[in-house]
Every structure is written in structure tokens, then in C-alpha cells.
């Protein structure tokens, strides 16, 4: 591969030069927000915010779910129009009314939800709107090569000619990252880029970010993982309920202060772990094989959290879907409370008492253009039905309870799921199952995009479920989470179960090494 990121970015930079404003020395303000504000109808997503970003810094933004972080990013990249306020770019007032305006200045973002075209190839997505042409025709080959070059350069092991929709969410996120790195030649924003990434890919991403910083790019980094913020950032700004409550130099603050700023109270402990006496075995798989995984034998007992860790593509989600009856099994047996069962489809699984909160909230989890209430109640409508019709009171009560318990930030259960912030959407996917009364809960990346406060809530809810005698399979690419919570931790690699550990029996490094096979 001949072209790397720099070559491709340089091509873009040449176009950017014309409009991008004068060069700003490192450490001087490059982008200033003055009273920037955004209302959706009556919802004040972002109250007048005044923030300054310095040239060449890594600036983290943290805040609870629905605090307005993504809204801020969308304003800066011309995705949505602002309600009021001013933006200064290199000292000049700019509109940033359209995505083109932002792109032209070298401002780009990796958005929280992957916004790419699933039907197009990876290369086509990376060059969308910025194609290489010769005499009016696209240079498809050149673009594929260049895209491959960039991907290889960044260490992302992805084929540039694959159709985007065939990749997993995490892989799509990497494509979006590569794409933004090509275009955000002066100002680059990452909105929870590590949500779907494992340690391995996160580390790659951090290297990329540092490298870009070295090249003079200003970076904005949004994350709910505070250790990442401390690892990476120079300064950090905190948003709470749409208000900018402060900016700190990273050297002058600590986790406790940030959490206090974010949620206006302190949490002693995020990972809430209670050990319950383990009961009978709820489910046991013997040599289970299916598309994407093979020969998986594990069991879950009442009161137990079984963690599954692995890299993207390790086959954990497929195993979960196979166990849940969504995908056909090719070999192996499932024993449910000691009895051999055939789980042919999802409804059979539900009848047995299995609940699955899937990995991708957008593709598998939510009916985005339907109300929150319907989304929450979807698995339990049968129970809410009295005679022919749904008991509307019970329907409302159930939805409201989950909204309250999970602190889903919404004016009403009637609001469409698409109007929720990412973390709040995730809570809907979780909340849907909490009233279901299942015996086995499979949570696939349950806390993706969820803020620390709510994470702690969710872990407490796990404990409540265990207390009632349920078992949990917790799939997570975030090692600390599985590490701190799982009574038994299984490591997956390339579709196989390669190692198992008891609660905190192995070190992080050991687990990671097993997942990577390094």
C-alpha cells in the first residue's frame, strides 16, 4: 500500500487551505463558543455555553446522559442549526450551518451513532462527498487502494472493499474514525469512539489521537470512561443538564471532582458487586456451535454473573443470539435447568425465561420512530393485555416505572426513541427486560454510552435481579466491567472459548493476552 493517512489527508488539506482561516499557533484559541445554545422545541438540549478550544490540545468533554455533549458536537459540525450564540473559528465569526462548511474548514467528527451508508463499501464511505475523479469518472481503484492504505496505516485490519453493512458495529466505528481522520485535518471530534471497542482497538485509537495531536490537529474527546479522559486529555470540560459547569486542566483535577461536577453528588463506588450464594444451574451449554462460534461449553447458575470477554468479532454476540434461538445452531446441546431443550426461536427462549438485550441498539434494539413507551413494553404486551385490548393504565405504569428507575431523561413516554440521547436509548434497551421476570438475562454491551452514575444504577439493578434468583450473562468489551462484576469470566477468541477465570482470579493483562493470543 502506497498511500497512508498523511498522503490522503494532505490531499484534503489542500482543499481546506482556501477557507480554513489563518494558522493558529499551538496553545492559542482555535475555536471559541460564545453563548452557544440549542433548543429542540421546548427541550433545552444545550443552554448558552461558552467554551474555548486551544489549538493542538486534546480537550475532553464529560457529562451525564442527555447532558448535551452530542448536541454540542452536532452544532460544531453543521449537522443541526443553532438556536442562538456565536462561534469563532481562528478568531472569525462563522456560521457552520451546513456539514460542508465544517468539512471545508477541516472540522470533522466521529459521531456517537455511526452515520455511514450501510449499502456502500468501506472505501466508498471513506471518500463519500470527496471522491477522486478523473475526467468526470470516479477512480474506484485508486480510492480503494488509498482507503486500504489509510486503514492499514492506522492499524485497522479491515478490507476497504467490504460492504459497510456486513461489518460489526465496532468495525463500522473504526471506519468512521478513519474517515474522520482523513478529513478533520484541523479539528477532530470523537463522540464516545471507544463505546464498542475493546482494549486492543482503544489502544490503537489512542495512538492515532496522539499522532494527530502531534501533527497539530485539535482534538475533542467525549467519553463516559473517565480513566480514558485522564490517560489522554490535556483539559476537560463538564456539561450538566445542558449547562457548561466548568473546564479544568487535567493535572489539576481528579475523578471524584469530575463526577461531582457531572452529577452534582458523589458516588463511592461504580462497580457494585454483591456476592450471592450460587443456586442451581439455570442453563448449561455443551459444545454449542453455530455461525460465528464453535464448541462453547459454559453454564450459568442462579445468582451468578457470567462475563464474556473478547475482541470485536470474537463471536460472543453470535453465541448469545444462538443461545437465544435467533440463529440456527449447528451442533451442541442446551440444558435448561437440567433438562435438554431445543430453542428454535426467540419466543421459545422467552417462554423458557431468557431475556436478551442485544448489542446494537440501532439495528437490533430500538424501534427508533416509535415512542419510548412502546419500546419499553414491547416484550411484555402479552402480560399487559386484558381481554382483547391492552390495559392502558398498566402499560403507562410499566413504561413510567422503567423511565424512573433507569433515570431515562425524557419529558414523556410518548416521545419518539429517536429523540433520545445515545445513553438514554441504551437504557430503554435494558429497561425493556427488567419487568419481564426472566430467569436468565443476557446483556450484550449493556452500558455502551451510559454515564457513570447510571452505570452504577444498572449494576445495582443487576444485583437486584441476582437476588431474585436470576442468572446473568454479561458480554462486554470493556474489561473493567466484566472483570469487576463477573463471578466467572470466559475469554473468547475467534469463535472459541479459550480461557475461564473465577472472580478476579487473573490479572487484566493475562485476560487481555488470552483474548489477543499475543
Amino acid at each position, binding site marked *: 500500500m502506497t498511500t497512508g493517512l498523511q498522503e490522503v489527508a494532505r490531499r484534503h488539506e489542500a482543499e481546506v487551505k482556501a477557507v480554513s482561516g489563518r494558522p493558529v499557533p499551538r496553545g492559542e484559541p482555535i475555536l471559541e463558543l460564545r453563548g452557544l445554545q440549542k433548543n*429542540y*422545541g*421546548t*427541550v433545552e438540549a444545550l443552554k448558552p455555553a461558552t467554551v474555548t478550544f486551544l489549538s493542538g490540545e486534546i480537550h475532553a468533554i464529560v457529562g451525564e446522559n442527555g447532558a448535551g455533549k452530542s448536541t454540542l458536537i452536532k452544532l460544531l459540525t453543521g449537522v443541526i442549526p443553532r438556536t442562538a450564540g456565536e462561534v469563532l473559528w481562528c478568531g472569525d465569526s462563522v456560521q457552520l450551518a451546513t456539514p460542508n462548511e465544517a468539512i471545508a474548514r477541516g472540522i470533522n467528527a466521529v459521531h456517537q451513532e455511526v452515520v455511514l451508508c450501510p449499502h456502500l463499501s468501506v472505501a466508498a464511505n471513506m471518500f463519500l462527498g470527496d471522491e477522486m475523479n478523473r475526467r468526470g469518472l470516479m477512480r474506484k481503484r485508486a480510492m480503494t487502494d488509498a482507503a486500504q492504505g489509510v486503514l492499514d496505516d492506522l492499524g485497522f485490519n479491515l478490507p476497504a472493499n467490504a460492504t459497510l453493512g456486513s461489518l460489526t458495529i465496532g468495525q463500522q466505528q473504526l471506519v468512521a474514525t478513519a474517515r474522520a481522520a482523513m478529513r478533520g485535518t484541523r479539528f477532530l471530534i470523537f463522540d464516545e469512539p471507544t463505546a464498542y471497542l475493546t482494549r486492543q482497538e482503544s489502544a490503537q485509537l489512542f495512538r492515532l489521537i496522539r499522532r494527530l495531536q502531534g501533527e497539530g490537529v485539535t482534538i475533542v474527546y467525549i467519553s463516559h470512561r473517565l480513566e480514558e479522559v485522564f490517560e489522554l486529555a490535556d483539559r476537560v470540560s463538564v456539561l450538566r443538564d445542558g449547562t457548561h459547569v466548568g473546564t479544568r486542566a487535567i493535572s489539576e483535577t481528579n475523578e471524584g471532582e469530575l463526577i461531582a461536577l457531572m452529577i452534582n453528588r458523589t458516588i463511592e463506588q461504580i462497580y457494585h458487586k454483591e456476592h450471592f450464594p450460587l443456586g442451581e444451574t439455570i442453563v448449561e451449554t455443551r459444545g454449542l456451535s453455530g455461525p460465528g462460534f464453535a464448541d462453547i461449553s459454559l453454564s450459568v447458575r442462579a445468582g451468578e454473573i457470567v462475563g464474556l470477554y473478547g475482541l470485536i468479532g470474537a463471536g460472543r454476540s453470535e453465541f448469545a443470539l444462538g443461545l*437465544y434461538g*435467533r440463529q440456527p445452531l449447528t451442533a451442541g446441546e442446551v440444558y435448561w435447568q437440567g433438562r435438554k431443550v431445543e430453542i428454535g426461536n*426467540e*419466543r421459545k427462549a*422467552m417462554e423458557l425465561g431468557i431475556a*436478551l438485550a*442485544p448489542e446494537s441498539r440501532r*439495528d*437490533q*434494539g*430500538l*424501534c*427508533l*420512530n*416509535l*415512542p419510548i*413507551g*412502546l419500546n419499553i*413494553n*414491547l*416484550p411484555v*404486551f*402479552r402480560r*399487559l*393485555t386484558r381481554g*382483547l*385490548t*391492552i390495559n*392502558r393504565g398498566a*402499560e*403507562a405504569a410499566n*413504561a413510567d416505572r422503567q423511565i424512573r428507575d433507569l433515570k431515562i431523561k425524557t*419529558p*414523556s*413516554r*410518548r*416521545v*419518539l426513541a429517536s429523540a433520545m440521547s445515545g445513553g438514554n436509548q441504551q437504557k430503554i434497551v435494558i429497561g*425493556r427486560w427488567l419487568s419481564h421476570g426472566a430467569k436468565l438475562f443476557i446483556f450484550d454491551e449493556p452500558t455502551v454510552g451510559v454515564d457513570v452514575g447510571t452505570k452504577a444504577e444498572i449494576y445495582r439493578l443487576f444485583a437486584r435481579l441476582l437476588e431474585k434468583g436470576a442468572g446473568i450473562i454479561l458480554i462486554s468489551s470493556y474489561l473493567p466491567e466484566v472483570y469487576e462484576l463477573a463471578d466467572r469470566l470466559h475469554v473468547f477468541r475467534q469463535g472459541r472459548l479459550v480461557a475461564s477465570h473465577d472472580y478476579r482470579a487473573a490479572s487484566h493483562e493475562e485476560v487481555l493476552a488470552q483474548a489477543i493470543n499475543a
Partner: protein
Amino acid sequence: MSVETVESAGPTPKRGISILFGLTLLGLLVVLWLLLGLATNAFWTPNNISNLLRQGAMTAILAVGQTFVIITAGIDLSVGAVVGFTSVIVAWLLAAGVPLWLAIVATLAIGVLIGVFHAFGIVRMGLPPFIITLATLTSLRGIGLLITNGSTISITDEAFTNFSRADFLGIPSLFWMVIVVAIPAYVFLHLSRFGRYLFAVGSNSEAARLSGVNVNRTIYLAYILSSTCAAFVGLLLASRIGIGNATQAEGWELQAIASSVIGGTSLFGAVGSVHGPLLGAFILATINNGANLLNVNSFWQRIITGLLIIVIVYFDQLRRRGSR
């Protein structure tokens, strides 16, 4: 948390500059009626209102059935053909001396079977709804023509043919049939869990499936409802024109889909109601009725229909967007 209240849940509606902007579809229909009342004396006569109710009735029922399918992000192009075909079936059965009740039941059963066939094609054979229903559209007309040998079968059963002319409590029986269909349809779509499932499947069938919704059964349900509604309209048509003829109801599928879309249904699924398509159908019927009363040239009538559809849907869009 019924789906139609979603709109009102949003932030307070922006006041439109014009009063027209705030009008619901029902409001627009009433405005049309008031204008026609001013423009022609005949409009508000009981006789004409009866006519109007009768004229919109069949499309209205088709549109309600069609809406179920569209909510699942599907489409049923066959409804017009099913109407023509079932009019032939009932005429044929009656001509063969089958008792009336049995002929009606058998005809409706054929409607169910057609729906089953569509859903089978979609669910098991993986065919796009457009293709499988287009294929039945073509084939059913062929079968109907074969049965009648290209001609029509007269219906001599007076009880049957008188039905469509009859009134009950001063309201035409055909309009009663709309009510008979609309009320259970409303309960089904907006109050029962199966209605919720239709929306969920149309919005994200994978999410619905993983939440334990029987997606296949939901699709069967939608197509069966649509073609059974069509078979029911076939009965009404046979009663109204007193013949069975396979080429009748040509293009009614477009009318039904248009009524549904005018009534706010989205062809991408997950958005729709029962009252919307009813209003859509009666808006279209009113336009035709009004043009006839005003003795508008038939060609101008087409032009005006097109323009009015644009105007009405535009105002309706404005209101919806305003209230977001």
C-alpha cells in the same frame, strides 16, 4: 401511549401563520364541504350526502386494510384485483345456487387465502411485497376473466343487490359497513397488542423479533386483513353494481394507497392510523362528488384532483412539522 398521540406529546405546536396550517385532515375535509355547500345548492341535500357516503365507502374500507400492510413497511398492490375477482366469485356462487350466506362466507374465505398466499411469498419465499402482490394482481384478473369468459355474471338475488341501496337510520348501509370495519380495525390497531406489533415490525423487524414478537405471524395478519377487507369490498361492489366482473375495480389499489398516504400513513412503515385512511378516502370522494355537482369538465376534474391532493397533503405536512 397510543401511537396517534405521539404528535401531541412533542413540544408545543408552533402557531401557523395561517389558520389553514393548523387544520387537521378532518378540518380540511370540513373546509372542503363548507366550500362546496356555498358553491352548490345540491351539496348539502340529504340525498347527496348519502351519495357521498356511499361513494367513499368502498375505497375507505380498502384503504384501512391497506394501511395495516403499509404500517409493516409492506404494500398490497392486489387489492383492486381481489375486489374484481371476489365480485366474480360471489356472482358465480350465487348463480350456481349456493345459498347467500355460504357464498358470502366462501368469498371472504378466499380473501383470507389470498392474504395467506401473499404472506407466504414474503415470509417463506423471501419475495418483495411489491412483486408477490403485483403477481396476484395480474393472475387474479386472469382467473376471474377465465371464470366469466370475459363477460359479466349477473346477480339475481334481490336481497343481495338491494343491500347496497338500503339505508339504516337514514345512513346508507354501505357507510354502515365502513363503521363495521373501522371500529374493530381501530380496536385492533390502536388498542390491542397486535396493533403495536404491526408498528414494531414496520419500524424495526429485528428489534421486534428479539423482543419476542412473532414477526412472521404479524406479517400474515397484515396481509390477511388487507385481502379480507378487499374481498369484503368485492361483496359490496357485487351488491352495488349487481354483477360479477373481473375487470372492475381497476386501479383501486392506487386509490387505496393514496387514501392511506393522504391520511398520514408512511410508505416506510410504522406510521399510520385507522381514521387517517378513512379521511383520505372521503377527501378523494368529496373531490369527485364536488366536481360532478359543479359540472366541471371531466378533464379539468383530473387536473383539479391532482392539485387538491398536493394542497391538502402539503397543509397536513405543515401542521405535522409545526407540531414537532
